[in-house]
């Protein structure tokens, strides 16, 4: 082997990356050639210098920042999925306890409000102008709005529980149509929900909605009409 060829192998030779045959040839040459031995020293010291270079490390808060980003991504992901048909979040067994606790709060509030409603309005709807005319009635609904950021729509568990509750009430009052008059009542109660390391506080408030009760014989003809 000549010097030029040997030098092209030196960087791999001392790292043990050459074949045994190549290594033997290089060693034979190195025994005779001082210049190539010096060249090998340069490679060795260069490699040692690279090994001694201080390793670059990420900052201490790297994981905290990464997990905060993941938390935001998770939130955005759930929001998108909620609007996709067939992918509406359902009650899972792992979150059953949370949902159950929320349901108890909301139902307790609902029962309390129902009692208030009974005090506010008569038990039977008032007949306005005879038996065939629509009569007025009121109903209680619940709203949930995050306290931390009022611009955000109510999402996650509290919002879902309230939505379920409102749907149930809507279904049970299917003979009624909304008059569109709503009024927020009282200060409501605050319900906190911890998720992905952040706590969101929702203000759950009752809403009084005025209804026109349509007599049963007019229901089919006026179905869907909004007064």
């Amino acid at each position: 082997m000549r010097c030029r060829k040997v030098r092209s192998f030196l960087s791999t030779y001392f790292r043990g990356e050459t074949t045994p045959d190549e290594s033997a040839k290089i060693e034979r040459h190195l025994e005779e050639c001082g210049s190539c031995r010096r060249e090998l020293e340069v490679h060795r010291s260069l490699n040692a210098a690279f090994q001694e270079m201080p390793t670059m490390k990420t900052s201490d808060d790297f994981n905290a920042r990464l997990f905060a980003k993941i938390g935001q991504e998770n939130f955005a992901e759930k929001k998108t999925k909620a609007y996709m048909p067939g992918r509406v979040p359902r009650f899972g067994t792992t979150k059953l306890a949370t949902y159950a606790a929320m349901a108890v709060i909301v139902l307790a509030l609902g029962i309390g409000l129902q009692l208030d409603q009974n005090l506010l309005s008569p038990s039977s709807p008032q007949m306005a102008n005879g038996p065939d005319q629509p009569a007025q009635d009121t109903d209680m609904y619940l709203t949930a709005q995050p306290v931390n950021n009022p611009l955000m729509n109510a999402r996650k568990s509290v919002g879902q529980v309230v939505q379920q509750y409102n749907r149930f009430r809507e279904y049970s009052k299917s003979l009624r149509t909304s008059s569109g008059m709503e009024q927020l009542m009282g200060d409501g109660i605050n319900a906190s929900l911890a998720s992905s390391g952040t706590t969101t506080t929702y203000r759950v408030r009752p809403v009084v909605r005025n209804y026109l009760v349509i007599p049963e014989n007019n229901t089919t003809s006026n179905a869907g009409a909004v007064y």
Partner: protein
Amino acid sequence: MEKETAKDLDHRLLRQVQKGDMVAFNELVNRYRDRLMNVIGRMRISRECAEDIIQEAFLRVYQHRDKFDFKHCFSTWLYTIALNLARNELRRNKKYKFVDIFDMQNKEVETSVEAKVPSNLGPALQGAIESLPEKYKIAFLLRDIDEMPYEEVARVLSVPLGTVKSRVNRARSILRDKLKPRMEERNALSKGALLPVNLF
């Protein structure tokens, strides 16, 4: 009991991550964050930017955790994502180059000090690595700085094994040419030779 390899450990952790285990994901991040920093931080990218790239790589891993094919190495996947992001950043930097005038002044001072002190090799080595052409630089960083096997470097870069070996060898050769005087000086110093001293 057979010892769990790094690949098996990564796969086990990733399976746990797929089930929603964030502690496992934290462990995966800890296993690779500094290794990635040691590679990407040496690619003529600012420290803050390198951290952002690594964070983005982990974020993408997390987003696409369910799509990972367990036939491959997790590290190959992670490095491929991170290096693609780093390449994009380098391309963007090439297009719009911002130079802080105060940084330039500091660099000049550092270089002049370093030139008089041969033992201060760090910045010279870092500068030599940064000045390598991109394809040689990445191959060199993965093989010689991160000590990744040639086969895995080939998979990360999606090039044949022979090409990787040739690129690494070429990078070493360029670095040797650039740093040879310093290395000879260093070797001479370690053998007790005196350097010429400029008194004026």
